[in-house]
C-alpha cells in the first residue's frame, strides 16, 4: 500500500469507527472512492430495507459542502466533512434534507452513547434518518435533550418531554420522530401518568419499537413492577426475542415477571443446559427464543415450529411415576400414549376424569408414558420423549402455564428437587396473580 493509500484508508477507518460507535446496528461497507464528487465513500445498511450513502469530505468550505449536498440523493445521504463544521457559515443551507455533519460529531455520539443508552438511541436515529446541518454542539444538545426527556417522562413532567419531542421533529425523519415519541410515551405511561397528558401525538401503536425497548431495558434500573407491567401491555413475545437478552439484565427479569400472564407462546421445550439449581426464575432471550433457566436445563418458548428448537431430552417415565407427580402437582390428563415392548397404546377418558387417577387399574403402572394431553383450557400436549409442550392446532398458552407444567412433568426425579419446583410453581402463580391485579 502506498503512502497515499495509507493516508486515505486511515481517514476512512476513522470515519467507520465513529459511525459504528454511533450505531452498532449499521453494517458499513467501504467503497473504492474517497472524497469523490459523485460517488460515496461508505454505504450504511440496516438490513435490506434501509441504506444511506456517506460522502466524506476533506473540505469544510460551507459553499462547497452545500453544493455537494445539493448533488446527492437528499434523504438517503450524509455529507461528512472530516473536520468540524460550524453552524454560522451555513445560512445558505435551506434545503436541509441531506445530513451535513462532521466526523467530530459522530465521534462525540459514539462516546456519549456508550455512557448513556438513551443518548445511544438519539445517536442511532440521527445516523439513520437525521437531516440538516449538525455541529458537535447541536448533536450534543439533541442527545442531552432526549436524555432529559427520558428522565422527565418518568416523572410525568411535560416541559422537558415536550422539548425532546420538538428537537426530534426538527432533526429526524418521520420514522425517527415516531421512535422517539413512541419511546417517551411508553416511559410516560409506564410511570403511571395518563396517556392523555403525554405532550406528543400518541402513536397509538400496539407495540414499542425494538430499538426503544432495547434502550429502555439497557437504561437505568427501574425497580417498579407496575412500570414494567404498564410497559408490557404493548409487547409481544416476538418483539422480546429480536435480540439477545442476558439473564443478568435486571430490567428484563422485571419485565417478564411482571407480564407472565400476558406473554404467550405456541410451543415450549426443555433442553439440557449447564445450570445450577435456581431459587428464582432467570429469564433470557437468545436465537429467537424466550427462555428460563431451571434445574440443569432451560425451557425455551417460541411460536416457531419444533424443527427450529434445539433437541429436547428424553423425559419418558413410567405411569406410576407420572401418577405420583400428578398427585403432587395437581394435574390431570384426558389422554396418554404409552409404550410396552413394541406396542404403543393410547388411553383416553370418555368423561371428565383423569387417566392418571391412581385408582385406575385398567393400565399397567409399569408402562412407559410417551405423551399426555393435560386437562387444561386449551388442552396442552406434553411429549415426554422430546420434553416438548404444545397445544392442538395453533393454540397459544400463557408462558407461566408452560413453565408450571414443564416443571411438574419434565424435571426433577427426586423428591427434594420436586419440592423446590413446587415452590417455584406457586411463586409463578402468585407473581402472575399479583401483577394481574394492577
Amino acid at each position, binding site marked *: 500500500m*502506498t*503512502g*497515499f*493509500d495509507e*493516508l*486515505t484508508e486511515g*481517514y476512512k477507518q476513522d470515519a467507520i469507527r465513529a459511525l459504528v460507535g454511533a450505531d452498532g446496528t449499521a453494517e458499513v*461497507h*467501504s*467503497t*473504492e*472512492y*474517497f*472524497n*469523490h*464528487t*459523485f*460517488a*460515496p465513500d461508505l*454505504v450504511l445498511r440496516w438490513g435490506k430495507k434501509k441504506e444511506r450513502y456517506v460522502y466524506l469530505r*476533506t*473540505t*469544510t*468550505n460551507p459553499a*462547497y459542502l452545500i453544493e455537494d449536498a445539493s*448533488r446527492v*440523493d437528499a434523504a438517503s445521504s450524509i455529507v461528512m*466533512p*472530516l*473536520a468540524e463544521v460550524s453552524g454560522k457559515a451555513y445560512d445558505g443551507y435551506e434545503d436541509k434534507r441531506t445530513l451535513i455533519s462532521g466526523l467530530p460529531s459522530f465521534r462525540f455520539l459514539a462516546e456519549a452513547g456508550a455512557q448513556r443508552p438513551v443518548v445511544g438511541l438519539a445517536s442511532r436515529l440521527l445516523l439513520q434518518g437525521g437531516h440538516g446541518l449538525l455541529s458537535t454542539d447541536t448533536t450534543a444538545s439533541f442527545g442531552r435533550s432526549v436524555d432529559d426527556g427520558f428522565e422527565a417522562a418518568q416523572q410525568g413532567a411535560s416541559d422537558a418531554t415536550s422539548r425532546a419531542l420538538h428537537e426530534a421533529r426538527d432533526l429526524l425523519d418521520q420514522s425517527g420522530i415516531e421512535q422517539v415519541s413512541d419511546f417517551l410515551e411508553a416511559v410516560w405511561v409506564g410511570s403511571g401518568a395518563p396517556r392523555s397528558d403525554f405532550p406528543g401525538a400518541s402513536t397509538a401503536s400496539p407495540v414499542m419499537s425494538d430499538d426503544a425497548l432495547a434502550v429502555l431495558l439497557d437504561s437505568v434500573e427501574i425497580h417498579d413492577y407496575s412500570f414494567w407491567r404498564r410497559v408490557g401491555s404493548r409487547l409481544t413475545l416476538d418483539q422480546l426475542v429480536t435480540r439477545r437478552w442476558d439473564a443478568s439484565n435486571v430490567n428484563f427479569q422485571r419485565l417478564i415477571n411482571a407480564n407472565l400472564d400476558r406473554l404467550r407462546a405456541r410451543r415450549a421445550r426443555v433442553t439440557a443446559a449447564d445450570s445450577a439449581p435456581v431459587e428464582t426464575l432467570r429469564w433470557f432471550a437468545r436465537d429467537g427464543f424466550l427462555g428460563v433457566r431451571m434445574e440443569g436445563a432451560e425451557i425455551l418458548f417460541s411460536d416457531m415450529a419444533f424443527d427450529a428448537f434445539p433437541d429436547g431430552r428424553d423425559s419418558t417415565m413410567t405411569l406410576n411415576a407420572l401418577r405420583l407427580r400428578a398427585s403432587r402437582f395437581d394435574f390431570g390428563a384426558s389422554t396418554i400414549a404409552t409404550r410396552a415392548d413394541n406396542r404403543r397404546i393410547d388411553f383416553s377418558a370418555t368423561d371428565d376424569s383423569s387417566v392418571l387417577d391412581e385408582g385406575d387399574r385398567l393400565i399397567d403402572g409399569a408402562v412407559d408414558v410417551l405423551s399426555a394431553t393435560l386437562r387444561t383450557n386449551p388442552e396442552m400436549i406434553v411429549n415426554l420423549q422430546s420434553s416438548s409442550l404444545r397445544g392442538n392446532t395453533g393454540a397459544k398458552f400463557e408462558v407461566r402455564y408452560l413453565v408450571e407444567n414443564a416443571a411438574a412433568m419434565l424435571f426433577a426425579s427426586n423428591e427434594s428437587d420436586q419440592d423446590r419446583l413446587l415452590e417455584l410453581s406457586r411463586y409463578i402463580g402468585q407473581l402472575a396473580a399479583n401483577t394481574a391485579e394492577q
Partner: protein
Amino acid sequence: MYAPVMPGEDLHKLGEDGARRAKEWLDATGRVTRSWTVYDNIPTPLLEFHWPHDGGKPFSYDIGGMFDGGELDLQRFMAECKKYSHPNQGGHFDKFLAQTYVMLKHYHYAAPEHILWMTWHPFRQTNWNKLSDQAHVISALKKHKERVFPPDGLGNWKALVDFDIVKQITQRVWVIVLSDRQEKLVISDSQRKVLASHRIDEGRS
C-alpha cells in the same frame, strides 16, 4: 508538518476554486477514485514540499489523487491548476518543472506516476508539443538554480543535474487544457449515479 503555501486572499480564492473545478472534472471522467486538494482542512503531507536551498521555502501541488481503470489503474497523480484566462503562464510552468524536479529528486516516497498541469488557457503555442521536453526542463532548472542546487555548486550547476530525473519529468508531465463549457461536456449526473451505483453493488474495493 509543513505549513501550506498561503497566497493573498483573492489569489487564494481563485486558486481554491480552480482546484475544485479541476478536481470535479477529473472525478467526472470516471477515471479517478480518490483525490483531495491542498486547500482542504486536513493535513496534506503528500502535496507539500520545500525547496532544498535559498531559504527552503515551501511549495505545493493543488490536487493529489489516484486513477482508475485501464492502463492508468491505481496510478497516482498530482496536479497544478491555473484558472487563468490568459496565456501568461510560461514563468509559472517553468517553476512547476523545477518544483517537480525537486519533488522527484528529494521526495521520491511521494512521487506519483503522473504530474498534471491543468489550465484554462493554452500558452507557449509555438512550443506546445515540447513544453516538458529535456531542453525546457533544463531551461526551467536554470531559472531556479539558486533554489534547486547548493550555493557552492551554482558555478557548474549543469554538472549537478540528475538526467534520470529529467527523463522522468519528460515522461510523467501532462498538460490538460479545460474550458468553462468543456467542464460541462461530461456524462450527466444521472448517468454518473448509475455508474457509481453499479460499482458499489459489485462491491469492488
